[in-house]
């Protein structure tokens, strides 16, 4: 609590009690603080700051500290003293390979969701009959949740499911395709749950671009391809980057579907599963924290790359209602 207040008042009187000083020359301190944008209005931030520190900053730093207190078992197995958890993380192929397995799922899923959302959002941009219905249908998978999607995929795309049945009935395949309990199943479920988010976000970014800009390009003789490439895309690009980051975050932390429709010990042995295995099954909290934090590091590295790319793009206003 006190840290919250202190952190917001770096300009408070360094020596002695600010309260006493306030009483002596209320106007001048009030003035000085006001000049720096500090006044009682900032009290509205207190609940959020307390929340952030108690539930995020503190546990997180505690978790980082925990990673340097490896269990005896890890120390004996991997050596490295207080860094034993990190040694284990990089040396144990069972854990380390999960980075690659996670990326292999999250990157294609996020890319697909963003790239496909662009044309769909574009087509659904104008006003037309049934637009609301279409939007509702596209957003519907949000209601399914990962667990139901997993259950549905298991039934629908399983060996006995309607999909295989239809494909065999239509003579396209002879043998039922193996679509679940493997990589494809998880990818499917990531697309189904991630696409609506990407679509919603890109739609709103698109509606933020002033239509008169495009009209202007049209009067200057640009055809629709040129308008898209030269006007819309540059204005949309920062939004695309944001959307990509958010869908990537969703896909990167895939957990239930990797377990339920994937091959949890094989091709879809993602990082979150490894972290949970250490946490819930082995009760090795320091190791679980290590994997969890490395997971954050890997993800933030990808985000940083995207942001770096984004920083080269046009960042100003999109001229519209947005």
């Amino acid at each position, binding site marked *: 609590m006190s840290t919250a207040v202190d952190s917001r008042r770096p300009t408070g009187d360094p020596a002695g009690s600010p309260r006493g000083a306030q009483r002596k020359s209320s*106007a001048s301190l009030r003035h*000085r603080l006001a000049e720096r944008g500090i*006044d009682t209005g900032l009290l509205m931030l207190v609940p959020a700051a307390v929340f952030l520190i108690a539930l995020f900053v503190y546990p997180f730093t505690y978790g980082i500290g925990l990673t340097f207190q490896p269990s005896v078992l890890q120390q004996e197995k991997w050596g490295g003293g207080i860094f034993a958890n990190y040694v284990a993380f990089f040396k144990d192929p069972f854990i380390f390979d999960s980075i690659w397995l996670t990326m292999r799922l999250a990157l294609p899923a996020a890319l697909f969701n963003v790239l496909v959302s662009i044309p769909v959002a574009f087509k659904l941009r104008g006003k037309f009959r049934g637009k609301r219905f279409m939007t509702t249908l596209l957003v519907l998978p949000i209601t399914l949740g990962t667990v139901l999607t997993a259950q549905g995929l298991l039934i629908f795309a399983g060996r006995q499911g309607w999909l295989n049945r239809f494909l065999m009935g239509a003579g396209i395949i002879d043998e039922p395709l193996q679509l679940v309990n493997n990589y494809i199943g998880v990818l499917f479920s990531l697309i189904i749950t991630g696409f609506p988010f990407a679509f919603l976000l890109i739609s709103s970014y698109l509606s933020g671009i002033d239509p008169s800009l495009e009209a202007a390009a049209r009067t200057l003789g640009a055809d629709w391809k040129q308008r898209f490439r030269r006007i819309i895309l540059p204005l949309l690009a920062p939004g695309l980057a944001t959307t990509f980051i958010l869908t990537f975050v969703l896909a990167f932390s895939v957990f239930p579907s990797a377990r339920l429709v994937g091959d949890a010990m094989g091709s879809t042995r993602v990082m979150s599963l490894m972290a949970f295995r250490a946490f819930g099954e082995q009760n090795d909290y320091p190791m679980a924290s290590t994997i969890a934090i490395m997971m954050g590091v890997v993800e933030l590295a990808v985000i940083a790359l995207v942001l770096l790319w984004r920083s080269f793009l046009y960042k100003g206003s999109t001229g519209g209602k947005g």
Partner: protein
Amino acid sequence: MAITASAFESLELTDVGRSFGGHDALVGLNLTIRAGEFIALLGPSGCGKSTALNCLAGLLPLTHGTISIDGKRVDTLPSEKRGFGMVFQNYALFPHLSVEKNVAFGLQMQGTPKAEMKSRVAEAIALVKLEQHAKKLPGQLSGGQQQRVAIARAVVLQPRLVLMDEPLSNLDAKLRLDMRTEIRRLHQSLGLTTFYVTHDQEEALSLADRLVVLREGRVQQIGTPAELHDKPANWHVADFMGYRNLIDLTVETVTGQDVRISGAGFSLNGLAAQPVSQGEAVRLAIRPEDLTVVEPGGAVRDGNTIDATVAVVEYQGREFAVGVQTAGGQTLHVRSAHAPQIGDQVTLTASASRALVYRSNLDEDASGSVPELAAVRA
């Protein structure tokens, strides 16, 4: 229950200043507003006039100085306790409330009894002639109508002081003239005290009893419209007051207030508006109306002549606005009774009393409050 202004004797701003993290937006504003006055605060955008207004309104805490009414400090009061009314540039009507409810809002805050509230709201709406629109939402009104609602909302509270922040800048030209008359009418009929911020000198000159000109947060001049119009305190104020011809020259001789200045291929007799000395670099300011083309056989005033070539001619009703170029390459704006042809050689003249001579350097002659302020701050 007629709407009238609440009474007070005078409102005093003493050394009012506001800085934002080291940058001074407003410095040492000293001003006494008497009850019933119409004060206009005039300056280009970014000169600190909105800061001044917001400080006065209490929307922005001061970083220096005090504001007091009849000797009682008000700068420590929050804006809702100051009893001022305000009209905003973009009207700032509550979009979810009807015209009536917008106007009634302040009375509700004061806990005015229902019956009285109703009659006062009706009266305020009648005052701005919006009776037919009382039930509409702000979004359904035109810009001019919205501005009337904003004015009604401010005056219904019978404020001690009405603050107006460029209220006409979002209106089109014709409406702006109408509303200007309307504001002046309300000010007089209700006996309001008004503090009006604008960047439009014509608006300020026509509305105000006294004007305050600001530049970079500092007061340049305070005076009546006539004073500002005829005797700007420095070339910056002159520039702002419509002295479109500003020419950099050098002082040749000084005789009391009469100076002879030269440079740029001509020399003139002028009037020193600020103390200048021989050899000093100065800036000459002349209004286009005072610099005229000499008619064939016409008289030259005070021996002042400038030779120039006609470059642009604009018809302006009674006379012609002519852009000319001197031999020295200086572009000047002048008036002519007849229409010269482009490329014509003409002779210009101006009377010495209308050719004002200022120091080129603005800062050293700025308001005398600067050293005082330094003392206050130290």
